[in-house]
């Protein structure tokens, strides 16, 4: 198919979905509904008592509940479901004796074990629906690459194609209808705002509380904003009236809380301003059981975009907008900017000492001024003398930020500090030039390493080491962001952006 024809199909599919909406098949399965009900009871208890001892059982239950929606395979193929049930049973066993809720714990085990007594109903309805339109006209979309592998082991022999949303984007899609296995919110808005097929259907368990259809982030403000509506179709066993839930009921636990999430705990740090050796940083959980403390000094962090073509994959992510799914490029044992600055200083050879001294000098005058006048007042004063990026004044005092981006801002800043333009301006500019050079070299190495790396493997596993020979750039690896903490902690400067081990992501899909 030519590019233009293919592109035309995308516009047509997008307009068709905006006009006709999507189908939502809600499937009632009494066994799955029973497990959902006991999970909700557990969360009522947690709402009352706090997480504490319940952490791991809550994690295991959420994870199993997720799989009920995304992995509706027959039991004999369904490793994810079997493992999920085992984990719940194991966590219940650990809690027996520790908590005084015998009835809830028994129901948890019984409901979980019952799931393995009959094939999930969603699977059967999925297969029937696909056969109704014909296996050549329908494609099945799985919520994760793990689900895709499981579903395709089951469905591909029958001629049914199974992809993830990411695959759907890359492949040629002659099919006319896509069946998404799971609720709309398990998929990115792309599923409905940039569809590859002119019809889209989601297959959702009746008990799943959130049936909202995602929309593009700009839809609310846009002329021609795309809002996709949904038609409900019921399937499965007849749902008993009594268990029918209404979303308005105050007892209902929001779906948000029932989805697998990282465990963040509460802020440990004191509520005070950071000292000169500290900064405010968020914990970022990474694939591979690791984490970093990420500060917002210096607005960007290096990332890898596997969807880009060779030579353009190494990019930056905005620190303040970092979101799960981004691949960060990190280095064992050290923050990348420290390594780059060290390399840049090496390059300036006989001027290194003078540059270091002049940088220290204007930054310490700035820190002193900030301490004396306060950040807010300093910002206002700088704005008044015409400094554009005055809001970044605090980061300019950090050793990680070489100088203000704009020449004019830097000159005005030095003037405001009662310092002469030179040698500060010249020295900082030389250092910036060398850091840019070191950065370009690193980028070239990384691009070359990414070019030979197996990026599909990266997407499947979530992290991988990059092989770079140069001793100055050793130990680089790429890893997917699993979650970003909603709050900051005070951490030592030298710890920021240096990877460490962390198990906070263990219950995440």
């Amino acid at each position: 198919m030519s590019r233009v024809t293919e592109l035309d199909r995308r516009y047509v599919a997008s307009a068709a979905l905006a006009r006709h909406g999507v189908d939502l098949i809600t499937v009632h399965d009494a066994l799955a509904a029973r497990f959902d009900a006991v999970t909700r009871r557990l969360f009522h208890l947690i709402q009352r008592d706090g997480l504490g001892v319940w952490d791991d059982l809550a994690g295991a239950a959420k994870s199993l509940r997720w799989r009920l929606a995304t992995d509706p395979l027959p039991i004999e193929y369904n490793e994810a479901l079997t493992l999920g049930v085992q984990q719940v049973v194991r966590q219940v066993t650990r809690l027996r004796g520790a908590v005084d809720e015998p009835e809830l714990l028994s129901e948890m085990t019984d409901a979980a074990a019952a799931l393995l007594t009959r094939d999930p109903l969603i699977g059967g309805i999925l297969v029937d629906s696909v056969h109704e339109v014909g296996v050549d006209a329908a494609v099945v979309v799985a919520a994760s690459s793990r689900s895709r592998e499981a579903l395709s082991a089951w469905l591909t022999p029958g001629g049914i194609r199974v992809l993830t949303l990411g695959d759907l984007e890359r492949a040629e899609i002659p099919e006319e209808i896509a069946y998404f296995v799971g609720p709309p919110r398990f998929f990115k808005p792309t599923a409905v705002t940039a569809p590859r097929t002119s019809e889209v259907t989601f297959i959702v368990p009746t008990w799943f509380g959130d049936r909202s259809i995602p929309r593009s982030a700009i839809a609310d403000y846009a002329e021609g904003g795309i809002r996709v509506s949904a038609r409900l179709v019921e399937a499965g066993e007849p749902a008993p009236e009594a268990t029918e839930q209404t979303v308005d009921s105050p007892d209902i636990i929001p779906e948000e809380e029932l989805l697998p999430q990282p465990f963040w705990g509460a802020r440990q740090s004191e509520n005070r301003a950071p000292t000169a050796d500290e900064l405010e940083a968020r914990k970022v959980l990474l694939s591979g059981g690791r984490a970093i403390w990420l500060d917002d000094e210096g607005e960007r962090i290096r990332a890898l975009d596997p969807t880009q073509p060779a030579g353009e994959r190494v990019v930056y992510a905005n620190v303040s907008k970092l979101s799960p799914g981004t691949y960060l490029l990190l280095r064992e044992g050290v923050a990348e900017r420290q390594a780059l600055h060290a390399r840049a200083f090496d390059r300036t050879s006989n001027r290194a000492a003078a540059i270091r001294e002049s940088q220290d000098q204007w930054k310490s005058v700035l820190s002193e001024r900030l301490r004396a006048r306060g950040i807010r007042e300093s910002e206002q004063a700088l704005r008044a003398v015409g400094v554009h990026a005055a809001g970044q004044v605090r980061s300019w005092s950090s050793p990680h930020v070489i100088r203000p981006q704009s020449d004019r801002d830097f000159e005005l800043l030095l003037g405001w500090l009662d310092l002469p333009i030179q040698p500060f301006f010249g020295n900082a500019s030389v250092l910036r030039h060398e850091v840019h050079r070191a950065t370009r070299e690193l980028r070239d190495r990384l691009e070359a390493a990414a070019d030979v790396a197996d990026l599909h493997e990266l997407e499947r596993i979530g992290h991988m080491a990059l092989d770079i020979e140069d001793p100055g750039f050793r130990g680089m690896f790429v890893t997917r962001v699993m979650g970003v903490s909603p709050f900051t902690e005070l951490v030592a400067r030298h710890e920021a952006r240096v990877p460490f081990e962390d198990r906070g992501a263990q219950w995440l899909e």
Partner: protein
Amino acid sequence: LGARLSRKTESFSGQQLIVAISVPSREFAAVLVGSGWTLGRPPAQTTTDPLTVLRTASIGGHYRAVNAAYVISGQFQGLDESHGSPRITLAGRWSIDRFVAIAPIAEQDPAERMPRPAIGSIGRMTGIARDWEQRLVAPAADLAIVGTKSWINQDLEAVLARDDDADGDAIETLLLPKTDRSATWFTRIYSSSGFADQLPLPDDLSLVILDGQGAIKYLNDILVPIVVCIFDRSVADETAAEQVVQLRNSRGEPVSLRDQLGWSAPAGVEAFAFTVAL
């Protein structure tokens, strides 16, 4: 959209106009908006008559000239009127009679000579064929596109034509990107990867098109009068969209595309616009 924006550069003085559009897939969107812009922007209004320009030309200044076969760019090193037909030294020796247009330029071009780009169907339709030589030596050259460079380069190969015209124009001709082989150019193209190291942008730009979420992240670093952000909805990254919406809601003054720019989004396209103080 690009053509409409090209007539609006003066309307929002002291302000930055930001237009955000979302498309099902980024392909061709940026280069089409860009082509509308370059077609709509008039060339610099200077005289380009060769003899008039050259008689007041200063030796050592940079000039761009066009004859039937080439665009030539380089340092002017002298005019010799001692022969029947005057000759000029400008990246080689040329007979002035063959020159159609010549104009001074602010900075040196990457190459001294390139084959003269030919304009066809779209040039006739839009009328730019009439002042094509003037455009070649003194283009507005105030457009930049930031995005995935190899994808943009693929988009440039597409050919536009009116109805059944046999002489369609490659988008590359309409945008005339600056490359190592350019002796003249209309558009700068930057790769979003590594773009951070190229900031700040030259200040002679009037429009920057940020093609895709990877480029839109740099919105706050771009201080030109007009910015078009093209969101590729097939890319799952929502953070760039949130960033633009946040800017609109915190500092922006909404602008109606339909009423103020006379443009309405075609099916499958979402769009909004706003201004912020520069």
